């Protein structure tokens, strides 16, 4: 099972470029864990939610922590110069989750999505 630590409230930066490239937004996956590592629900004061997805491995889930990168084709010291466009390429779209999951997240700040397919519907590329 993969366990997702997700940002609940968007961070805002007055600099529009930094706001896009640097700030975590609502639904962004901050970190993923393997089964059983998230032992308690998020604190009421926390800015995080936890979503558990049985059937998905941590290795599969890691892809959702990738940033959106732009490659302008520039090379330096043999390495491409990459620019971060967004802090996260994917987000959980809560509107695509079931009422039960949304209700659990609102009340317990933690929910389990019963199938990988259901999770994949909600994990959208921005």
């Amino acid at each position, binding site marked *: 099972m993969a366990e997702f630590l997700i940002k609940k409230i968007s961070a805002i930066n007055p600099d529009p470029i930094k706001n896009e490239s640097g700030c975590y937004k609502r639904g962004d996956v901050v970190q993923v864990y393997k089964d059983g590592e998230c032992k308690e629900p998020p604190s009421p004061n926390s800015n995080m939610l936890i979503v558990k997805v049985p059937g998905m491995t941590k290795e599969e889930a890691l892809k959702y922590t990738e940033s959106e990168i732009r490659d302008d084709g520039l090379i330096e010291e043999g390495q491409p110069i990459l620019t971060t466009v967004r*802090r996260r390429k994917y987000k959980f779209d809560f509107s695509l989750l079931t009422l039960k999951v949304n209700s659990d997240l609102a009340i317990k700040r933690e929910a389990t999505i019963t199938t990988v397919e259901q999770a994949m519907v909600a994990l959208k590329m921005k």
Partner: protein
Amino acid sequence: MITCYVNTASTPGGDGTTNATTGDNRAYASLNEAEAARQQVLSEPIEIICEGATVDTTAVTIDGWTTSAANYIKIYTTTAARHDGKWDEGKYRLEVNDNLLRLYEAYIKIDGLQTRVTSSAADYSALELSIGADYNEISNCIFRGNGTTNGKVTNNGGIDAKFWNCISYNFNSGFRNHSGNSYFYNCTAYGNNIGFYRLGGTMVAKNNITQSCTTGFSGTFSSDSTNNLSDDATYASSTADIVNTHVLFADEDNDDFHLASNDAGARNYGIDLSADDNLPFSTDIDGQARTSPWDIGADEYVAAEVEFIPRIIIT
């Protein structure tokens, strides 16, 4: 001052307000979680205190904040959670097979961390200051690589990047200035391809040691550089550095780069930087006071205290 805690014995989802490992007020479980949870426009400084003997295995990028000289980010370890000048598997540490700690913001202070890039398959940085990462201060840290093919600690554009009392070993570039300007004072580079590498920008090097590197110093350093020491013929200052000199460490086979009691290379050959115009400080990587004449490198040799037990003979 905002204070929050990372404890690698905690579990994700805490509010980070204490160093507890359970409950609503539990610490963040990783530095990455703390960064994501606290990202904000700062109206007061924030300190993030890192603890825990379990390794922190998630790369950290500090970005999306608004900081200033008064409203800075300080990330550090407490004395109890800090290495004692030598890599310590029982103290807080970051170990990642990736770019490990990347700073995109100004006014960040990092003190007493251990970071390790666990692979040399790609050119990952144990620490990278990017353009905009200005006025950052890095002190008393140990950076560890996994071979000389790749890896580095690098300033990639930060203005006035300051490093002191740091150790960097087993990288392609121990300490590098790619662009921007930096001050490297009393740092020790060991077993790297290049110990100190000025690739571009301005790099001021004072009181640094490089040993067992393929090349000790590479590039043209600022003329303010002085009192560096290399075991090859390279230097940062052609007139004020010591070359072709071997330093005796406490136990270099086991990565203990404290100066040995019988060292005659680095001990007492440093310049006193306690009143330096750009980066004054007066302690070493162990937090011990430096005494004149200063030693070169991250460690100031201090003789172990000898306990005298009075013996009274009554006749």
